């Protein structure tokens, strides 16, 4: 269906319906649909068409979701050509935890879906959180949450009908962003933005269940710093469509005047899939005049804040502009905080005071999270949440010869380091091309056969110390069903751990691996092929489990070069070689001695992994109380909002402010009860904070002891 990759932009059509018809004609939509039908040998009525609109509505007639009228017009156009087997759907999301009326059918009815079009064509709306099935075994699924709605999986034609809007973290939210609604879980902020990675999930989804057409409703758009939160309508009078999902967004982003790669979701897809070859662009590509994209400060600060799933969830709840007649809050207290905070932050593009207050609040909350994570990284690793990921690269792009060549690359390096004299810690190591090449060797007093039976060599890399998640995907087996080739993605805590205080990133490396099985030894060789967050330049090596008179000898050889945080790049430890050498040696000895302990743990049947698993069913039923003590966060945000209100200049707030400037230019500060309230609240927050953190961990990991 994509022999002719095309993106079409229709601007300034007389009506949205006319624009849609024009768009489909220019896109050769009908010809492509017919070609598919003929290839599948189906009558039009038997072709299952699924339309996934953007249903991110919190108000009626809001420009944050696809216009239901346009979706229904598309259904009418399909029906004219006898394509009457049409479903529309979306899944539940976090808002169902805190607002009423978020069931998909109810939401659809409230925002204007009639279930019967103006021309009398009936259609069904389905909830993509229901009717979940395992996908076809024909394709290689690496998604950790494999089950998706049968309505999506079994559709013959998938049409993604997105809205044209900005996004405070991603810059823009278009077709690819809209696909997060295909995933079924309700607590999306936990499962798809924290436990799993939304950019990877969406890219993988595109590969596994192709989206045949992406249409973007840009008739009325929502722009500004908070395009998914606050109504800021821009009559762009445009419709965009493509038979390639990445291309459609790319063009729509260009029309916004944005660099298409500012969205991590789109950037990932662009890197993994790229734009189609020989595509055509048709229509007016001039950017919208005075379109407001979220400022860099806003995007960065929101990304910083949203690293914590609870902060992401809670700020969504408290900052979202909501029509409470139609979507009342489930809890009165949340309604109150929402009322206060939205009034403060709904005009951040117009009011510098609100803008900087918002950015400051985001950084403040993000820093609280970072402080907590830093503490856990150093002193409380069991409370770090492990991450599940998709592989993030396509192992099929590597030939068998690429895998077979890895030992030939590693073994000479191993030879070099073997003849390197050990340092004071007994570690053999040296620099090669700015990377560290080292060998660590230890004999465990465990019989070899018993050891390799319980510690699979294929998992030797995954079990290394400070691994907090990733993905392994076997590629090739021998006759005894042992893995010979595999692809692997590993996430490690920043190395050395104290780098976390300087903004050190987790190490995220994708590898291809070859395993060799001998009579007296087993070896795994790996070579890095990608680092999704650019945290590593080299991470190649080998682990060998060998038979030894005194038990099992473990040898680890590796070549590593991890990127340093900015601070350490500036300091440049190369000017202090003795200090640097000592730090490197100590860090590696510590790391590998603890890795040995992990192997021993695996042998003894204990968990060889650092961290706790997030419950995979978290947030799926009921209205869970929120981790990290929503009560404490509510106080914190309430305090901040109150302080903002008090010091906000009177002309902005419309009230007497905390600071008043008299005619002579002197500033007068109000005193008394207000200060006491603030002090009291601040004291309360600090006192409760530790308890809140414990609750956070307890909720996600299901450990009741943390709830004391």
């Amino acid at each position: 269906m994509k022999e002719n990759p095309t993106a079409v932009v229709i601007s300034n059509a007389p009506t949205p319906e006319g624009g849609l018809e024009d768009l489909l004609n220019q896109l050769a939509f009908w010809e492509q649909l017919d070609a598919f039908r003929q290839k599948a040998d189906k009558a039009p009525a038997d072709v299952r068409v699924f339309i996934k609109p953007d249903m991110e509505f919190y108000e009626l007639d809001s420009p944050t979701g696809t216009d239901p009228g346009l979706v229904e017009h598309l259904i009418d156009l399909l029906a004219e050509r006898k394509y009457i087997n049409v479903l529309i759907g979306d899944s539940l999301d976090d808002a169902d935890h805190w607002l009423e009326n978020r069931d998909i059918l109810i939401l659809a009815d409230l925002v204007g879906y009639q279930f019967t079009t103006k021309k009398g064509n009936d259609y069904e709306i389905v909830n993509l959180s229901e009717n979940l099935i395992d996908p076809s075994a024909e394709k290689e699924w690496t998604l950790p949450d494999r089950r998706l709605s049968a309505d999506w999986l079994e559709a013959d034609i998938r049409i993604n009908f997105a809205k044209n809007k900005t996004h405070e973290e991603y810059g823009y939210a278009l077709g690819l962003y809209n696909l997060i609604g295909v995933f079924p879980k309700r607590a999306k902020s936990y499962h798809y933005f924290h436990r799993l990675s939304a950019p990877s999930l969406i890219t993988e989804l595109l590969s596994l269940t192709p989206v045949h057409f992406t249409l973007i409703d840009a008739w009325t758009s929502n722009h500004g710093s908070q395009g998914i939160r606050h109504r800021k309508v821009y009559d762009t009078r445009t419709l965009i469509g493509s038979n390639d999902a990445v291309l459609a967004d790319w063009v729509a982003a260009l029309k916004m005047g944005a660099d298409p790669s500012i969205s991590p979701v789109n950037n990932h897809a662009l890197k993994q899939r790229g734009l189609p070859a020989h595509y055509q662009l048709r229509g007016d590509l001039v950017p919208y005049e005075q379109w407001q994209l979220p400022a860099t400060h806003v995007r960065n600060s929101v990304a910083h804040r949203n690293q914590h799933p609870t902060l992401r969830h809670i700020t969504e709840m408290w900052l979202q502009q909501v029509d409470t007649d139609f979507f009342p809050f489930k809890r009165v207290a949340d309604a109150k905080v929402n009322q206060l905070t939205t009034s403060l932050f709904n005009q951040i593009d117009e009011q510098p005071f609100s803008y900087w207050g918002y950015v400051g609040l985001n950084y403040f909350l993000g820093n609280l999270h970072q402080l907590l994570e830093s503490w856990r990284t150093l002193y409380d690793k069991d409370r770090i949440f492990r991450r599940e990921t998709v592989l993030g690269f396509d192992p099929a792009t590597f030939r068998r010869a690429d895998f077979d060549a890895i030992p030939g690359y590693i073994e000479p390096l191993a030879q070099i380091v073997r003849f390197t004299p050990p340092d004071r810690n007994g570690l053999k190591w040296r620099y090669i091309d700015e990377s560290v090449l080292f060998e660590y060797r230890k004999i465990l007093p465990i019989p070899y056969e018993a050891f390799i039976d319980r510690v699979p060599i294929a998992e030797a890399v995954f079990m290394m110390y400070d691994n907090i998640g990733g993905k392994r995907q076997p590629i090739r087996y021998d006759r005894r069903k042992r893995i010979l080739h595999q692809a692997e993605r590993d996430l490690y805590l920043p190395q050395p751990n104290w780098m976390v205080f300087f903004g050190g990133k987790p190490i995220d490396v994708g590898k291809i691996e070859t395993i060799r099985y001998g009579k007296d030894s087993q070896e795994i060789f790996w070579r890095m092929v990608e680092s999704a967050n650019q945290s590593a330049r080299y991470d190649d090596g080998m682990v060998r489990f060998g038979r030894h008179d005194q038990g099992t000898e473990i040898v680890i050889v590796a070549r590593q070069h991890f990127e340093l945080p900015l601070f350490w790049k500036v300091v440049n430890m190369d000017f202090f070689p003795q200090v640097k050498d000592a730090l490197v040696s100590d860090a590696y000895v510590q790391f590998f001695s603890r890795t040995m302990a992990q192997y021993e743990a695996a042998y003894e049947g204990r968990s060889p992994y650092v961290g706790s698993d997030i419950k995979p069913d978290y947030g799926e039923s009921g209205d869970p109380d929120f981790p990290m003590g929503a009560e404490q966060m509510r106080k914190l945000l309430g305090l901040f909002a109150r302080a903002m209100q008090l010091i906000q200049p009177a002309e902005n707030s419309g009230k007497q402010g905390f600071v008043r400037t008299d005619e002579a230019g002197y500033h007068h500060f109000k005193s008394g009860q207000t200060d006491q309230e603030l002090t009291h609240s601040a004291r309360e927050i600090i006192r409760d904070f530790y308890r809140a953190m414990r609750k956070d961990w307890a909720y996600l990991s299901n450990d009741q002891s943390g709830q004391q």
Partner: protein
Amino acid sequence: MNFKTVSIIKYPVEVVWVTFRDRFEEIGERVDNVAYIREVDRTRSGDGPLQTNYEWKVDPPLPALIKGYIKPEMLSWNDIALWREEDFQCHWHIVSHYFKDKMNCQGETHFQSAMGGRGCRLTFQGDIVWKEGLSAIAGFMEGPVNRAIEQVLENMIPKNFHKITQATSLLLAAENS
């Protein structure tokens, strides 16, 4: 204070209308924090609309600030409703057992077809007027406590409406499963 809230039940309007009108006691049994809903009276004069009178007693979780000041009578009331079949509208007013003449609360509930005839949209709207201001208690804490009680009562009515619609959905789902 005016209030308006909307809810949808995934059953046809005729089914929901009859369930609301005739089975309120059963619905009440399925609502958290409702001690009971009891039918006191049901009358119809000639061809006029049906009038129902239900007594409510609720037991909601209360903020610590006002817990000690709330008397049981403050949390019970009579819900007197007129049911107009011809346009599926119900006009109601609340008679509080404690505040009696001090509170005037009335409104209407519209039952409309939704979801292409498969559902029923309920629009619940009304207003609460406190005559001469609420004075549940007097003395040192009079201001904040009275304000807090006022807010709790004002929030309770639309909140209960959502709970009632959810309970109705569950009741109908249980019977149709």
